[in-house]
């Protein structure tokens, strides 16, 4: 590999701007600068050095700051597209067709376009994830590419720097000391700078004082935090790390909990409470007449014994009873069950009176549990109602005249009854649906009818099941991110080089990565204490006014 050999004899990697040993500027560009560009301390940015193989080319692509910034901007813009319309997982629709219809009916042709382009499920698309992944690669590669050479050059700093390096620093001073003789100058400089918390190294007639070097690592620590965060999000995909599921459960039901193997949940009761205040003006304006106070599901959590199989329900052990309320999820074994939704007043049971049509006299009531109907309902020895058939969600008759049900849910229950009474020991057939009664064919008019008396309703609770084992990692990532940000923002890396020249003069140079005002204040103190020649700020011409102002303040 080619090397740049500096006049001092030190071998530098190709692309190095400032000699790692003595500090001489190596490139024409650096030589022409009045003040050296101290980014990465003049070390070679690796990617800029070689551009040969495919690996190098990919590497260089991702290490580019321009590419990184472009990726950030693209990701931001694309992410914002996902917020234009609700994402698909917020849409309550079972099938793709229903989803497409939802976007069409709510947002028109733009909605259809949005859905067809896949923007409705943007954050799960492969290309969005690839984009974020590329951003991750960019962060990692750029950090390695810049961080490692910077670290090396900071670690291997020599105390003595060449004249051409010192003179090209922003703050320089050169000249005779103003008082006393030079034999004590370096000692005094060291003493003062140590008091100012600098770490001081000496090498013959040269001195290097440095503090806050770790501030240079701030951006890299910051990147490490980001990467930790990204890894955490990535781990969501591993089985057992992340669950985000939902379930509907009716009062009285016991159901297997999706995503939570071996656990069952029983819904004892759903409670919806409102404040019983008089509606306020604002409420009336908005057409709202009740303010919700509480949404609560009283549940029992069961665990199946370890060796139990799906389908077995006889080996359930109670884990705990709990009232799930908004912001008070049922928590167990890393899982949390949240109150998310509810449906009130679903039909549960219907009550009918077995009534004589002529006299209107009732022989008794029959209550049918719509989720679990019985074969017959006995009123007394001679009187009973036989349930011939039952259709929970009656939608009409097919071409053979058979009643149809659309779903297993009792949305529109229909019954075929056989009514046996002392007057009609043979039985009378009647088809009963909501607002519809068809009497048995062939037997003519029935004597009795099942007259509708009332319904019992039941509430249904919508719960969300969440488990996220990556949260500690996300917290750690966020912490590292903020740590890096703090380090990089509130500390600065300050260096002061001082050399006692052979002609008895003193040369001083100083550099900081930010907050020049701060370092100048310290050098003012140092100059006075060690009687050093007054420094100049080589960039002062432009900032003259500004710095004067700062000094006055």
């Amino acid at each position, binding site marked *: *590999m080619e090397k740049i050999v500096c006049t001092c004899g030190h071998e530098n990697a190709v692309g190095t701007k400032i000699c790692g040993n003595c500090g001489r500027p190596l490139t024409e560009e650096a030589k022409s600068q009045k003040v050296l560009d101290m980014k990465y301390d003049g070390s070679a940015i690796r990617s800029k050095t*070689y551009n040969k*193989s495919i*690996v*190098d080319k*990919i*590497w260089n692509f*991702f290490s580019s700051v321009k590419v990184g910034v472009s990726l950030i901007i693209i990701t931001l813009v694309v992410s914002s597209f996902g917020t234009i319309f609700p994402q698909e997982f917020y849409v309550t629709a079972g099938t793709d067709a229903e989803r497409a219809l939802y976007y069409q009916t709510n947002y028109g042709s733009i909605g259809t376009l949005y859905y067809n382009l896949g923007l409705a499920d943007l954050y*799960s698309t*492969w290309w969005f*994830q*690839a984009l974020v*992944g*590329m951003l*991750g*690669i960019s962060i*990692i*590669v750029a950090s*390695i590419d810049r961080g490692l050479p910077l670290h090396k050059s900071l670690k291997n700093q020599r105390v003595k720097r060449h004249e051409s390096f010192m003179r090209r620093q922003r703050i320089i001073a050169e000249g005779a000391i103003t008082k006393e003789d030079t034999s004590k100058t370096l000692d005094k400089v060291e003493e003062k700078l140590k008091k100012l918390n600098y770490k001081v190294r000496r090498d013959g007639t040269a001195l290097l004082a440095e503090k806050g070097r770790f501030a240079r690592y701030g951006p890299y620590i910051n990147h490490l935090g980001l990467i930790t965060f990204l890894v955490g999000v*990535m781990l969501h*995909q*591993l089985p057992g790390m992340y669950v985000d599921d939902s379930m509907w459960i009716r009062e009285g039901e*016991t*159901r*297997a909990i*999706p995503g939570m193997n071996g656990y*069952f949940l029983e819904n004892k009761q759903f409670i919806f409470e409102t404040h019983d205040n008089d509606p306020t003006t604002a409420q009336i304006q908005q057409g709202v007449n009740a303010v919700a106070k509480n949404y609560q599901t009283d549940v029992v959590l069961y665990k199946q014994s370890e060796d139990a*199989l*799906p*389908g*077995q*329900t006889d080996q359930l052990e109670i884990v705990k009873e709990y009232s799930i309320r908004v912001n008070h999820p049922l928590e167990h074994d890393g899982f949390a069950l949240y109150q998310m939704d509810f449906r009130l007043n679903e039909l549960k049971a219907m009550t009918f009176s077995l009534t004589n049509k002529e006299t209107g006299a009732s022989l008794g009531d029959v209550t049918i549990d719509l*989720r*679990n*109907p*019985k*074969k017959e309902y006995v009123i007394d020895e001679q009187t009973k109602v036989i*349930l*011939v*058939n*039952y259709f*929970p*969600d009656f939608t009409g008759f097919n071409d053979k005249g058979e009643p*149809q*049900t*659309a*779903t*297993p849910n009792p949305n529109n229950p229909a019954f075929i009854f056989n009514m046996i009474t002392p007057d009609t020991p043979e039985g009378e057939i009647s088809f009963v649906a909501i607002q519809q009664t068809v009497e048995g064919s062939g037997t003519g008019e029935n004597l009795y009818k099942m007259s509708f008396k009332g319904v019992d309703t039941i509430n249904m609770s919508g719960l969300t099941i969440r488990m996220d084992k990556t949260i500690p990692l996300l917290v750690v990532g966020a912490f590292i991110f903020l740590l890096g940000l703090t380090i990089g923002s509130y500390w600065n890396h300050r260096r002061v080089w001082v050399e006692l020249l052979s002609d008895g003069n003193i040369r001083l140079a100083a550099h900081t990565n930010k907050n020049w005002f701060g370092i100048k204040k310290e050098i003012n103190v140092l100059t006075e204490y060690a009687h050093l020649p007054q420094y100049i700020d080589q960039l002062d011409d432009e900032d003259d006014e500004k710095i004067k102002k700062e000094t006055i303040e």
Partner: protein
Amino acid sequence: MDKKKKRSITRGIILAVLVLAIGYTIYSSFTKEKVEVIQRGDQAPNFELVGLNGETYRLSDFNGEGVFLNFWGTWCEPCKREMPAMDRQYEVFKDQGVNLLTINIAQSEFEVEKFLNNLGVDFPTAIDKTKSVMTAYNIQPLPTTILISPDGKVENIITGEMSESDIISYMESIKPE
């Protein structure tokens, strides 16, 4: 020269690891839905259900014999249409080591019994009251039929209605040697 090679290898490895990690993430998120569903060749999840006749059906008890699992509901018309053929073919294949178990999704015994009686079929049926077998097999559309080979592996998954000739060939495919 060696250093250059080493550098290329290091970079290559770093890039490869990153690309693999991202590739895996995209792949698994893309196939997540499908992975959860059992696939051909998977071990069929064991389960135990009590049939309408009071008999307990445990999948592992059928080891060495084929199992024809059919998930259905009374509101599902195609389920209804394929049932008589299933019943007929079960009569043919049950002595050849093929078992049929139809699993209703959490309906009442009344509805299930009425429905089967009206159809005039009497194959073994169980009701998955807690939907846990349905969850274990991740059944989405009805009807879905899972063919389980004598060694307990999922031979095939059929969603949608089957014709009588389909049913014959499926039963044939899980017949023990």
